[in-house]
């Protein structure tokens, strides 16, 4: 897991988003439970909050506040380390520097004070990644981060995610629709179909038989 990019593949409705959201308990599992790497089961709201603080989420629709600047959006990542009052009073100098550093890592230092609703889709997604980085997480979850981006922006976003994973030794779990991106960036691929794991292995092991297990008949892979 350490420093590994895991890609979840599967047709729409296979349970990719549900799995990711369950890992951070945005969705409650209907059966079973989540166990953290420390062997802890998440019972209280406090446990869940602390778990979420260590688990950064990147969303398909970016989920940024459009009328706030990129910097202000990125600083939201620090909320888990503040009380209500201290978050209203403002963020520390160190936190602001960390936020700026994250923004420059995704190539958006010069957009730090720009309102997010005037950024392009690809830039907004990179703000989302900067926010995740600023959280200083132990795990990054990305729910179809490139589903609404053009190929060039997609490449850039996936590269950033992989570099973060390698350089910071933060495992990344990312759900994707695009097979070529999965093969190019994954260290490990997990194939889901109807809520079941039907493939688990390196991209090299993903042959046609595995694909038809994930997507059904080959003709269906086009949609």
């Amino acid at each position, binding site marked *: 897991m350490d420093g590994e990019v895991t890609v979840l593949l599967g047709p729409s409705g296979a349970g990719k988003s549900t799995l990711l959201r369950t890992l951070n308990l945005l969705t409650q599992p209907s059966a079973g439970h989540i166990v953290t790497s420390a062997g802890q089961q998440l019972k209280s709201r406090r446990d869940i909050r602390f778990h979420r603080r260590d688990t950064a989420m990147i969303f398909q629709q970016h989920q940024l506040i459009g*009328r706030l*600047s990129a*910097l*202000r959006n990125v600083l939201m990542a620090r909320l888990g380390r503040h009380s209500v009052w201290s978050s209203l009073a*403002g963020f520390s*100098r160190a936190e*602001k*520097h960390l936020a*700026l550093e994250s923004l420059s890592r995704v190539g958006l*230092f*010069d957009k*730090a*004070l*720009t*309102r997010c609703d*005037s950024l392009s889709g690809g830039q907004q997604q990179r703000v989302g990644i900067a926010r995740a980085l600023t959280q200083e997480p132990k795990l990054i979850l990305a729910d179809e981060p490139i589903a609404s981006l053009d190929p060039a922006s997609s490449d850039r976003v996936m590269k950033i995610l992989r570099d973060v994973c390698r350089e910071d030794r933060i495992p990344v779990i990312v759900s994707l629709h695009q097979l070529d991106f999965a093969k190019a960036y994954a260290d490990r691929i997990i194939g889901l179909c109807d809520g079941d794991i039907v493939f688990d292995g390196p991209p090299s092991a993903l042959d046609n038989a595995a694909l038809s297990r994930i997507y059904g008949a080959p003709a269906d892979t086009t949609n």
Partner: protein
Amino acid sequence: MTRLLTAQPALTNAEDVLAEDSKGRRKLLLQIAVVAAIVIVSLWMTGMLDRSRLTSGLPAIGILGTEMFPPDFGRWRDWVGPLVETLAMSIAGTALAVALSLPLGFLAARNTSPNKVIYQVSRVVLNTLRSIPELIMGIIFVAAVGFGMLPGVLALGLHSVGMVGKFFAEAIEHAHPAPIEATEASGATSMQVILHGVLPQVFPQFADVSMYRWEYNFRASTVMGMVGAGGIGTELVGSLRLLDYPQVSAVLLVILACVTVVDILSNMLRAKFR
């Protein structure tokens, strides 16, 4: 604020960026302080900060409250007719308001108005209707067409146009331009664009505003009784003049019950129009 943030020259140094960010925060705090100061001055001017006057008034309200208790529902049979009148007035008034607001809304919306002059004139008409209080309109119409529900309906309807028309216009201005463009691309006339490109988009907001206004008009029509425009308001004013406070509280409770029912009804209708 928007323009200030986006028109920043390129800042290359982290300290500069943070200084600029703090400047924005300080400006925001200053704006909040100015608004707070205006609010405090208004509270002071209106006597809301006059503790002794407020506390000395409390016992008087208490006495009035005890005189209102227990409510006297003895004459409830006489209230059924006026209640139905009030309901009819609120529905007819809202219908009149919506009928007039539909054309006016489109004329007063920047994206559908035929030209600048009509746009400005429509805005002035809406502002005028909004600025004449419904009670004054009631008095004018009672003088014009005599006592009864008719002046009430005219007053409620025309005063409502000021707000309903303005909200309609705002909903139209916020309609998404893309589907409108698609309608234009099909070769539709501007009337067809309004009917098929704009109206389906803004219909839920129109329904929202109309239903809210119906509820408002029900409440307002009770006040119209004071100027002789019929309905349950006439009963309320009658009881007040006789200083029959138990009966006043009973009428108020009946009005509260009806407003609640109207509110539930309008919420149900609103959910249907989504």
